[in-house]
């Protein structure tokens, strides 16, 4: 009866939050559902850290659910590509649940808490399940768990427009997931297997057949929809804007990135391995969209009047950076792409946490109405400054590191790369503009009347502050995430799933 829990880490990452969800539904009293959720999120975070530390040492964690060998049963695998994202996902869930306690209690009626927090755990479980799975259909199942949970969470927003936003998200999300399902079906039709490694072995034999090409198209478009790649991002802005603040923090940090991960994993390991044509098509499809997304959405963010919508558009632009790096098809490019997922999560969660803090004292978050907030809320404003600097990519912050790696990767591309470097620099200037616009209002604009209120509640400040400090920590000491990202890029380029 001796058992070693460390052998079961990949499955525990998923089932701890998954199985906790129905139990949370039963917890009635006010703080209990929240406390249990935080505890489970932190436990998941600890599991993710444990796995990441083992992956860093060169381990690959492999798990066969139900004891069935790989192509016959469902396998899980944690390697460098998903270990870092698991940390991001469970970390974001913990940060958002812990750091938005008061905001959540203000926005969600206590009697609805158990259901809300159950959905919260389901979202965490769904995203983790997508990340650890090495089975194409299993990814779909967990994608749907995470999607349904995020619809529920966003629909918790108090404004009635949240309902419209979530309906749009539901329709587009379902189309995206169904496209993915069609793609998986077509590959299954041509190979007879659902296991990613087994598929990677068999796809090259049939790579030139039309169903496989079609599958690549369906999967890429479907996941791009889920990842809110420009111009398929229309669902995202309002969904983030009207969601409860805590949900915005959680989703902005990791919601779309998991879809990007699945896209990269499937595309690189199945279609691109040894198929130059496909690699070129992949790059040709993603690169222009990524560049356009960076430019257009940064520009939109510059003129957006609502703080959270501005941050949402900036998120779409950042997805552009992530996919631009991937579309270079080089090791350096992929490194920047994976590293940026991590760093952007740090920056965006700090910024959305600051927004949540501001929302405790301001009725609505129009940027103009925040005038002079820095006097009353110095810590919150400082968090916003740090997050903003990291978003822009100022040296010393986490955002700088990934942008630096991206620019290095672009420069490897020769003349074409120079143009893209220029675009990245222009959009960074735009980021300066939209971050500065908010800072100016916070710090230098005279408030309309006299402001008489205190800082946000202490727990929120502590968490927001530590999120902001993490941006500095990983800006000055980027070794660990950088090493993991490099390792991951090698895995992806090497073609082994």
């Amino acid at each position: 009866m001796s058992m070693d829990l460390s052998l079961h880490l990949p499955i525990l990452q998923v089932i701890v939050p998954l199985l906790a969800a129905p139990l949370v539904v039963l917890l009635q009293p006010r703080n209990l559902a929240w406390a249990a959720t935080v505890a489970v999120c932190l436990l998941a975070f600890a599991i993710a850290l444990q796995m990441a530390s083992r992956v860093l040492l060169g381990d690959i964690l492999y798990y066969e659910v139900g004891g069935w060998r790989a192509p016959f049963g469902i396998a899980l695998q944690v390697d460098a590509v998903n270990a870092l994202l698991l940390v991001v996902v469970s970390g974001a869930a913990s940060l958002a649940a812990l750091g938005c306690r008061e905001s959540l209690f203000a926005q969600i009626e206590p009697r609805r808490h158990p259901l809300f927090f159950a959905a919260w755990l389901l979202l965490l479980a769904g995203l983790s399940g997508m990340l650890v799975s090495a089975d194409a259909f299993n990814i779909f199942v967990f994608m749907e768990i995470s999607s349904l949970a995020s619809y529920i969470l966003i629909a918790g927003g108090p404004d009635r427009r949240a309902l419209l936003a979530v309906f749009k998200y539901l329709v587009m999300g379902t189309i995206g997931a169904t496209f993915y399902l069609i793609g998986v079906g077509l590959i299954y039709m041509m190979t007879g297997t659902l296991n990613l490694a087994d598929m990677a072995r068999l796809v090259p034999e049939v790579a030139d057949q039309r169903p496989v090409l079609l599958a690549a198209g369906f999967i890429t478009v479907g996941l791009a929809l889920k990842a809110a790649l420009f111009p398929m991002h229309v669902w995202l802005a309002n969904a983030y804007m009207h969601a409860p603040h805590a949900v915005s923090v959680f989703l902005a940090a990791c919601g779309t990135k998991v879809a990007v991960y699945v896209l990269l994993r499937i595309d690189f390991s199945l279609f691109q391995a040894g198929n130059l044509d496909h690699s070129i098509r992949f790059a040709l499809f993603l690169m222009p969209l990524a560049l356009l997304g960076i430019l257009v959405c940064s520009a939109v963010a510059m003129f957006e009047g609502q703080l959270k919508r501005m941050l949402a558009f900036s998120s779409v632009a950042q997805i552009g950076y992530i996919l631009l790096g991937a579309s270079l098809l080089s090791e350096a490019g992929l490194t920047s792409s994976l590293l940026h997922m991590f760093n952007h999560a740090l920056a965006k969660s700090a910024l959305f946490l600051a927004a949540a803090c501001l929302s405790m004292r301001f009725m609505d978050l129009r940027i103009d109405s925040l005038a002079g907030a820095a006097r009353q809320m110095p810590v919150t404003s400082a968090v916003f400054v740090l997050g903003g600097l990291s978003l822009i990519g100022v040296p010393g912050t986490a955002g700088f590191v990934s942008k630096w790696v991206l620019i290095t990767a672009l420069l490897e591309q020769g003349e074409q790369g120079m143009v893209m470097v220029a675009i990245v620099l222009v959009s960074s200037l735009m980021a300066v503009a939209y971050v500065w616009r908010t800072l100016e209002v916070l710090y230098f604009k005279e408030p309309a009347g006299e402001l008489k209120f205190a800082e946000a509640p202490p727990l929120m400040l502590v968490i927001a502050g530590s999120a902001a400090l993490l941006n500095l920590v990983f800006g000055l000491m980027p070794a660990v995430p950088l090493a993991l990202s490099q390792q991951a890029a090698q895995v992806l380029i090497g073609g082994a799933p």
Partner: protein
Amino acid sequence: MTIIFSLFLLTLLVIIAIAIVHTRNLFVCIALMSIFSLLMAVNFFTLDAADVALTEAAVGAGVTTVIFLTALRLTARREKREGTKASLLSLCVLGITMLLLIYATIDNPTLGDPNAPVHVHVAPYYLEQTYELMGFPNVVTAVLSSFRGYDTLGEVFVVFAAAIGVLFILDARKGTGPEYRPEQAGLKHHLIPKAVGGLLVPFVMLFGLYVQFHGEYGPGGGFQAGAIFATAVILFSLLEGEQAALRAVPRSAQMALVVGGASLYGFVGVLCLLMGGTFLDYSVLMQDPVIGRQVGIVAIEAGVGMAVCGSLLSIYHAFAARHPMEGRDESV
């Protein structure tokens, strides 16, 4: 033979689908949807997918139709004339996409080709090993609950998510709704529904039990049984009224089914893990691995049945017990 049947039924399917999109009356649209589902189910049946046909009938034609109707009662019955501006353009784009898709399927293996990749890799293992490993003949049940039991766990939690989502969004968890309302009195004052329907409720339940426990030997299993059980209670509620149904199976009992079913599945999985196997490896549950698997499968199928039944019921009641004027925005 199969191909001729399919040809015919599929053509009907396309006609119905176009009619569904064409009609403006949402009620008609739902009626046609139920035909669509039945046709789809017959198609599945002719394509040898008996389990799927049963599910599609129970869920698609049964529960979905009922939920659609109850939701329709709370919203509008007709669709307004104007479509969106993009309708003509999208028609062209989608038409071209369709032709491309048809062109791309030329390389697909022909229907029924025994040498298609799907029939030579992975699947033969299931067909050859099931009897030896599980000791029962329904390979679909074996794959569903054991080989790919982890997917099914996910599926149970998808249903769980839908149930808590509907309850959360409609905020319909507590109480049995406002006071008694005449329009929810049910159909029992009509002779024929009373005579026929009342008789049927226990038989539907019995049939549900049969599907639940015969799932290893014939088409069926926890999922279909849960849907059929929910159908029985919905039938009862249609006849006797919402209040009577909620007295018979109160909301707390529905929630207990959902939570209990999902937890039972998870518990079996964790138990396997604690007894030294991997998650959901039922073979460690007993001395004899075959019996262990059978025990595990019966247990998780029971969990699936409970969770599905509870979820579908709580979704149905969240819609059906709601008053059309409840939750109205004051500003509207």
